[in-house]
């Protein structure tokens, strides 16, 4: 995932990736750092990771997109090339009020990538187009 995050967040994901590779868990100090950097959505994102909610969809053309099953069971499509999530929290907290860099769904995608626990799924090119255009039935 191409990153548009502050350096501190990127370093944090690298540390989590390293620690998780070695010990298969995230140490307490990194969990505290995660909470410090991302606030309340850190815990919610970790919940989503535990529930295996993140799937990476790939199409033959090489396009990729992430799908995250939200707390209410709704499916959110998050993009690889830019930070965007169709959830209300992203529209309000991130885009309108600029209070945080991302929502719990995008954070869950980053965490799953760092921990290498993303589910993988293949879709056809036309299916990918539907997903990317946001016209997919939710």
């Amino acid at each position, binding site marked *: 995932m191409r990153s548009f995050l502050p*350096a501190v967040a990127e370093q944090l994901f690298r540390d989590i990736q390293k620690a998780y590779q070695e010990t298969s868990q995230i140490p307490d100090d990194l969990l505290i750092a995660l909470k410090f950097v991302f606030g309340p959505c850190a815990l919610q994102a970790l919940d989503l990771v535990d529930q295996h909610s993140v799937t990476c969809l790939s199409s033959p*053309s090489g396009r990729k997109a992430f799908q995250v099953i939200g707390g209410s069971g709704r499916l959110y499509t998050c993009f690889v*090339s*830019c930070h965007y999530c169709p959830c209300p929290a992203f529209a309000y907290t991130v885009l309108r009020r600029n209070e945080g860099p991302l929502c719990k769904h995008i954070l869950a995608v980053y965490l799953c990538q760092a921990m290498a626990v993303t589910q993988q799924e293949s879709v056809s090119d036309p299916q990918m187009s*539907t997903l990317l255009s946001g016209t997919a039935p939710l």
Partner: protein
Amino acid sequence: MADILTSVFRTFMSQTDVNKDVTMDPHSACSALLPGDSSVSSSVLLLGDSSISRSLLLLSAVMAASELGVRVVFFTQTQIQSLPVSLQKCVPSPESLKKIKFSYPRTLGDLLQQVAGLHESQNTSPTPPSLIIVDRLEGFLGRETTQRSPSSAPCRLIASFRSDVDSEHAGGESSATDPILDVLDRYFQMRCTLDRDRSYEAAAAGLKELWNVYLSATGITEDACPKEREDRPAAAPKEWQLSISPDGSMEFKMA
């Protein structure tokens, strides 16, 4: 960054400037822009008067197709009636024009669908487009504030946008207060602002219209690619002056 726009400025530079500075050969400017080099991939939001920004977009499309030989997709809601006067003087070859595909989506939904489908095989023959241009983004957005940026490296993206706030205070610097523009800025690495020059000097230029052109990076670029900028031997000029003759031909000058 903003490589294609910069090479447009250089190519259509006034002759006096070209003589002063031999390094400004348009071909050397373009040779640095090899398609596929992901370090130059960038997205630019072009702000300002719609008629001028459309001419600039068309010049960019033709430049990219003829000089770089890359495929271009040009999205606009209104039919292209004629090419900018500057292009009519040095007519691009029909072969290079064939590399530009004009597409006329009517609604935001149409635009999203067409952009989302660009990766499908019928749209990628022989190669996928390397430049996506969206004319008058505000026409698609309407009152909706949700916008999904179609950029994906190494494809470049240029979109033009005219802010409501801007048109109310022509030439003012109040554009930052437009909430839609605030959101758009997140998704574009560069901003190119066209601002009508209303100084005495401009008035003295007579029939010619003078515009100031500013290239500026948005916050995201500052954090994301510090290395890339250090590697660059000489920073591209950030300010240009555009003069438009009564016949519509455009000429750029470094400010």
